[in-house]
Each structure stands twice: as structure tokens, then as C-alpha cells.
């Protein structure tokens, strides 16, 4: 009898997932980590530093990303193969899935939480789905007014007022799709967005949309608060005179960092971050770095940015103090340090070290390592608090 009790006890220890699902709990401290090679995500409890579920069957998750429902119970995961998967974080299971295109690159959720938009490479365009049922609501083929084929779309973000904004990679345009009225979305198109926009960001206040350009120096900026928004090229001269290095991985703009009156962006093809004045959009400073930056992710207070790098420097992280534009810390967490995510008020940062099959957890103020999790080929890390922020 005692043996049975012991076995039962052992069993309950070995079955944390079952214990969790039975337990009443919130989701505000949960998140997901993409396991890019196995088509799975792990659901994590960021308070207990533990994995509570592993959800499989999400397809090709190279370059996958995720957004969250307003109640922070569901993650919408955007796969490379066109798969849009809705994951129930509490049950640890897939609650909806559609393969909506042949090839995709991320998405966004509307401010009211009702629409999920996906950015597609093939066929090029944006599709918008009902967040509850994943039924198709709108299909927006990205065919430029200048003619040509459907363009790949990139830099898709949500903007206040049930709007989505995205860039046309091949056509060099920026479009706004406004779903505030019933029926088909109202499209506003900017035809002069620069050569090969490859990614974009929207500031947390929903005011500035900035697209990075691969085909020319500079970035394209739209002030969405203007009576008549228009495109403006900023940082036109940032790379001039310097030889551009081969870009082994495209920088990502989503982790844009803002502190006071400046924000910082990764430079394409240079070992640099660029500091920009948030009012004039003039280039006001440069941070020299260890390698070509991929993400420059701001700690939520905006004081520091954590930066990771493209090959062959992708084993290193640098921390930049934004007011002084100085590198104040550097360390080597391991091979392919790919993605960083801060807890909502910035006490910790979680970091995927892909080729070590580990996720590290650091104190974001002392830089001390607090723990690690075994995760298979981890890439993107996404915490549910993203649900409360524009553009994430």
C-alpha cells in the first residue's frame, strides 16, 4: 500500500503539465518559445522558469513569430510554410490551424483583438482572419499600381483603429489597410517607399512607421498622426563612404529601442547602431559594435538595449547604455544567440542559444545568469504581455 502511495507521489511529480491544467491560474506570466527545427513550441511559465507544455504539429517554423489574444490565453503562431496556428496556452494544445499560403513571414493582431493578419511571400499579399474562428475575412493581393507580379509583403504591424500597415518588398510601397468600417478594408497606398523595404516597426504610441531598406541607404518614415501622412526618407547618408559588409542575416527592426528623445536602430551592413532624434529624425549618434546587429531590443524602461549579431559574431551579446551610447557589457552566451525577450517590466531577459539547445535567463540589471532551460533549437521567444502593446 505504501508502495502504491509512493508510486502515485512519484507520478504526480513527473506530471507537472497535468497539475498545471487542473490548477486555476492566470496567463500574464506565460510565453512561448519556438523550436524551429521540430515544428513545435514550448509554453513557459516565466515566474517559475519552467516549461509547462510542448505543442507539436505547427509545420516549418524557420523564422516563425507569434502574437497573443487580448485575454493572453491564445498565441497565434506564424510559420514559414503559410501555417497560422492558434495555440491554447492553458491546455497546451492547438485550438485552430489553417495553412493559408505557400510561404509567409509573420503577422499582427488588431487593437480590438478580433483580426489576425498574415504577411505572405507566396502568393504575395496579406490575408486577414477572424481571431476566434480563423475564418478568412479579407485577402489583399499586393499588386502594385505600377503593375508587375504580386509583391512579397514584409514589416506587417498593427496600428490603432483596426488598421494594419505593411511594406511591399519587390514593389517598394507601403500600404495601410483600415478595417474600422464594416466590409472590405480601405486601402491607402504609398508608392514611393524606397528600394527593397525588408522589415519595419511601428512605435508603441502608433505614431511612426519606419521601414528599413535593403536596396538603398536610409529608412522610410511615415508620421501616421499627420493630417496627410506621407513617406519621408530618413538617415539617407548613414552608410555613405564606408564599405558595406556582406549581410549574413538581415537586421530586425521590431525590437526598436527608444529612450527619452532618441531611438536606436540596427544599421544594415555595418557594425553599428544608429541613434536618431525622435522629433527631427536626424542622425544624432552612432554606436560601434562587435559585429553586424540583428536585434537591438530595448529593456522596457528604454535605458539599455541588448544587441545580438549576425554570423560570424552570433555567439556574443552586447548591452548598450542608450543615454551615453556606450557599450557597457559584453558576454558570450554560446553559439547562435538569436532572440531576446524581456519580462514586461524588465527584471529579466530570456535569450535563445540555438546551437546549444538552451534558453538562458539573465537578470537584466546585474547581467547575472539566473537559470536555463533545455529547448530544442530555440529561436523566437514571445511573452504574453505583448498582447498589451501596439506593434508587437
Amino acid at each position: 500500500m505504501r508502495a502504491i502511495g509512493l508510486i502515485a507521489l512519484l507520478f504526480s511529480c513527473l506530471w507537472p503539465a497535468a497539475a498545471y491544467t487542473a490548477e486555476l491560474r492566470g496567463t500574464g506570466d506565460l510565453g512561448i518559445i519556438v523550436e524551429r527545427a521540430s515544428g513545435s513550441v514550448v509554453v513557459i511559465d516565466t515566474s517559475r522558469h519552467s516549461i509547462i507544455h510542448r505543442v507539436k504539429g505547427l509545420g516549418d517554423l524557420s523564422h516563425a513569430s507569434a502574437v497573443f489574444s487580448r485575454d493572453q490565453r491564445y498565441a497565434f503562431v506564424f510559420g514559414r510554410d503559410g501555417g497560422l496556428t492558434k495555440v491554447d496556452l492553458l491546455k497546451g494544445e492547438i485550438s485552430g490551424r489553417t495553412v493559408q499560403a505557400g510561404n509567409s513571414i509573420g503577422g499582427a493582431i488588431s487593437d480590438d483583438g478580433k483580426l489576425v493578419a498574415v504577411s505572405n511571400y507566396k502568393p504575395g499579399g496579406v490575408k486577414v482572419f477572424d481571431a476566434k474562428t480563423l475564418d478568412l475575412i479579407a485577402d489583399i493581393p499586393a499588386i502594385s499600381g505600377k503593375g508587375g507580379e504580386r509583391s512579397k509583403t514584409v514589416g506587417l504591424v498593427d496600428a490603432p483603429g483596426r488598421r494594419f500597415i505593411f511594406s511591399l518588398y519587390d514593389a517598394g510601397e507601403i500600404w495601410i489597410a483600415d478595417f474600422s468600417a464594416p466590409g472590405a478594408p480601405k486601402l491607402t497606398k504609398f508608392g514611393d517607399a524606397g528600394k527593397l523595404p525588408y522589415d519595419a516597426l511601428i512605435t508603441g504610441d502608433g505614431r511612426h512607421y519606419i521601414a528599413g531598406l535593403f536596396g538603398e541607404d536610409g529608412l522610410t518614415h511615415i508620421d501616421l498622426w499627420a493630417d496627410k501622412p506621407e513617406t519621408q526618407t530618413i538617415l539617407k547618408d548613414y552608410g555613405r563612404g564606408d564599405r558595406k559588409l556582406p549581410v549574413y542575416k538581415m537586421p530586425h527592426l521590431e525590437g526598436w529601442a527608444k529612450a527619452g528623445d532618441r531611438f536606436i536602430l540596427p544599421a544594415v551592413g555595418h557594425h553599428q547602431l544608429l541613434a536618431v532624434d525622435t522629433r527631427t529624425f536626424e542622425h544624432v549618434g552612432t554606436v560601434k559594435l562587435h559585429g553586424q546587429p540583428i536585434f537591438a531590443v530595448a529593456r522596457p524602461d528604454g535605458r539599455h538595449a541588448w544587441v545580438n549579431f549576425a554570423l560570424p559574431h552570433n555567439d556574443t551579446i552586447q548591452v548598450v547604455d542608450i543615454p551615453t551610447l556606450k557599450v557597457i557589457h559584453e558576454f558570450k552566451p554560446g553559439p547562435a544567440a538569436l532572440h531576446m525577450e524581456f519580462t514586461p517590466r524588465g527584471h529579466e531577459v530570456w535569450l535563445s542559444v540555438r546551437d546549444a539547445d538552451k534558453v538562458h535567463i539573465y537578470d537584466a540589471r546585474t547581467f547575472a545568469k539566473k537559470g536555463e532551460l533545455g529547448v530544442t533549437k530555440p529561436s523566437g521567444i514571445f511573452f504574453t504581455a505583448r498582447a498589451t502593446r501596439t506593434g508587437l
Partner: protein
Amino acid sequence: MRRLFSVALLAVWAPIAVASELSDTRKAELRHMVLHDCGSCHGMTMKGGLGSALRPVDLEGTDADSLAYIILNGVPGKPMPAWRALINEDEAKWIAEALTKGLIK
């Protein structure tokens, strides 16, 4: 795309000698790099993304030498970088052959 290959070939290309034997360790490293680093743009299943699709069916009519040239030297005006600083000609040739034969997936 094919025109681009030929122009590139005419310009400076001298055919790479038959790839010398790479160690199994190096092949594993290269395979890993193709899946995980090249895969950011070309997809883990090589179905493409921002970069071209690289399955055997997509590469039909493209010989391994042209592909190795592109790997080493990149594509001007496009995000495909020159990988010459990170891999040598034998390694590029091995990757090119493995891709045309569908051996990396």
C-alpha cells in the same frame, strides 16, 4: 535569374576543381549552417522565403558550379551575401551539389 547566373559566369568564373574531400565533421557543420542560417531566408525545407527556393525541382537547369559561384560571391543588389569570408570554394561546391541533389533537408 538564369541570365544572372550566366553573366556572372562569363565575368570572372573559372570552374572550380572537383571538390576535395571534406571531413564528416565539416560536412555536418555545413549542413547545419544551410538549414539554420541560410534557412532564415530560404526556409528550412528550402522552399524559399525572402530568398529563392532551392529544392532540386527549383534548381533544375542550374549547374552546381553556378550555384557555388553565387554562394561565394552573392547576388549584387539583392540580400544574398558573398559567403567567401566564411566558407571556401570546396565547401561552397559541396553545398551546391548537396542542394541540387536534394541531400540537405
